[in-house]
């Protein structure tokens, strides 16, 4: 009990902002020092981070484990593919403009159904809904291309100001798209940071900690969970929208339940009790999976071992373990 009594550090966000600025500086410099492949990987990492951050609003802050967030990622991805195929302008801004409202409406709709329950029932509902979407993507092959999926051409950025063709088109696209995704990531991180530190975010954490008491504060629990679900799904959907142009192709794999599992894994890896956990998790997981796939046929076994180790040894994830180590270090310094 005594060990838990620790004074939270000042409410000032200044040290945090300084650390964030330093990380951002490093990220801005990456394309100058690394090759296209590494930059491409990092874009995948940033996108996974956005997906996991959105997911973690539900798990870490609302106490609801969704096992169907692939649905929102996938709906984002497929929306872009449909837009690219049927509506014409291959512009990233246009994709976002059409995609965001659609993932928002989808999340609101499915969320409305899912938040009727909590715990395992909630998890099963989210899973079931995502599997329905997956089946639709598989079976409606004349619309979705079935298991072959849909191709998405490289879009122009910044309202057509930047388009990419010719021999170096791919390299140019990757470099500029990296900054594009980085900028959107920063916006997403800031938005979510404000949300979790807003009165609404505090209410979510209250509901997570003690639902009964939250109700006796006059909070309408289900409504809060619903809004949280809606925001969470929308951010994960934005990640899906950003992912397609990079991947050039969307297949039903991103709607399958194992993909939801990867999002859960990502949040656990980084640490779902910390705001920054899913960001670290997203980037680390992307590299981990890429190198595991490249080095062994049994990569799933390797990831499985990592997951088991994580749950047993680092239940608070990478960021949780690091912040605890940092705390101990400070305490030891304070003691001597």
């Amino acid at each position, binding site marked *: 009990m005594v060990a838990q009594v620790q004074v939270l550090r000042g409410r000032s966000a200044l040290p945090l902002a300084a650390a964030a600025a330093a990380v951002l500086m490093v990220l801005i410099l990456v394309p100058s020092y690394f090759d296209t492949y590494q930059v491409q990987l990092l874009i995948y990492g940033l996108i996974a981070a956005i997906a996991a951050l959105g997911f973690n609003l539900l798990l870490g802050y609302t106490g609801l484990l969704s096992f169907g967030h692939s649905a929102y990622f996938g709906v984002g991805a497929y929306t872009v593919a449909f837009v690219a195929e049927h509506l014409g302008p291959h512009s990233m801004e246009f994709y976002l403009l059409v995609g965001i409202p659609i993932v928002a409406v989808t999340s609101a709709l499915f969320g409305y159904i899912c938040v009727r329950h909590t715990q395992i029932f909630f998890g099963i509902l989210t899973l079931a809904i995502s599997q329905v979407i997956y089946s639709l993507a598989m079976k409606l092959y004349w619309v979705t291309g079935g298991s072959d999926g849909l191709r998405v051409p490289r879009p122009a950025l910044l309202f057509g100001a930047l388009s990419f063709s010719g021999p170096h088109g791919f390299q140019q696209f990757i470099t500029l798209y990296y900054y594009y995704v980085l900028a959107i990531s920063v916006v997403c991180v800031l938005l979510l940071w404000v949300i979790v530190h807003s009165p609404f975010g505090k209410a979510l954490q209250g509901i997570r900690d003690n639902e*009964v008491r939250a109700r006796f504060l006059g909070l309408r629990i289900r409504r809060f969970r619903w809004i949280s679900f809606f925001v969470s799904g929308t951010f994960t959907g934005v990640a899906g929208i950003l992912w397609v142009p990079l991947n050039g192709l969307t297949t039903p794999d991103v709607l399958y339940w194992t993909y939801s599992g990867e999002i859960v894994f990502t949040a656990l890896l980084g640490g779902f009790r910390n705001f920054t956990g899913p960001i670290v998790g997203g980037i680390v997981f992307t590299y981990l999976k890429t190198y595991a796939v490249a080095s062994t046929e049994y990569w799933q076994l390797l990831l499985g071992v990592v997951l088991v180790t994580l749950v047993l040894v680092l239940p608070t994830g990478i960021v949780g373990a690091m912040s605890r180590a940092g705390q101990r270090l400070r305490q030891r310094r304070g003691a001597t």
Partner: protein
Amino acid sequence: MILLKTVDLRKQFGETRACDGLNFVVHKGEFLSLVGSNGAGKTTLVNLISAHLQPDSGQILLEDRDITFTTVTERIKAGIARSFQIVSLFDGLSVFDNVALSVFSREGKAVKMARLADHDEDVRREALEVLGQFGLASKAEVPAGGLAQGERKLLDVAVAYALRPRLLFLDEPTSGVSTHEKTQIMDTVSSVVRGGMVTAVVIEHDMDVVFRYSDRIVMMHEGAFLADGTPDEIRANKDVASILLGAPLTG
């Protein structure tokens, strides 16, 4: 003046009549103690009035307005708040945030997500003021899960008090703490509650505490009221003493 009244309120769990046709009255401004042995129906009565449970039959009237079928949220809006027998806090949030969340909820600001909670100066001032009243200001930044038991009991009351209720139910605010702390907690609670002109109904087992702080005492036994009176009247009631305590009262 009557603030709250129940009419023939009944609640049965299986064969057990937890509330057997209760006509309970709370007067404005009083500090009322609800006493009785375990299983007498005290907590059930509070659960019914706070909408934690639905009655089988009967009515609940708040200043002659029938609130029997209103929701928890509506009852809180009407001014009925409660604390919990087993401390019920938001352990992951700071002590400050526990109280601030009450204030946000009361002012309908809890749905706001576009501004930082700490930047709301009005809420911040009010939450710190309530914490100060309960002697918890120095612990504002500590996670609620890291407080000592006595402080947790006080915070539980502070969270309910920050809703600015007209009628506050406190379910055993001193259970599970030492005798010495009991007095401290009750001193604090009664002075804040009386200072804020809040009507309070306290469930309490310790008869010393009950006699010392109450304006009126209501005794329950097996779902019914056994006695109702001032501390002096209850003290003089020999039947009550022998039934409830199994021994004559001293002091």
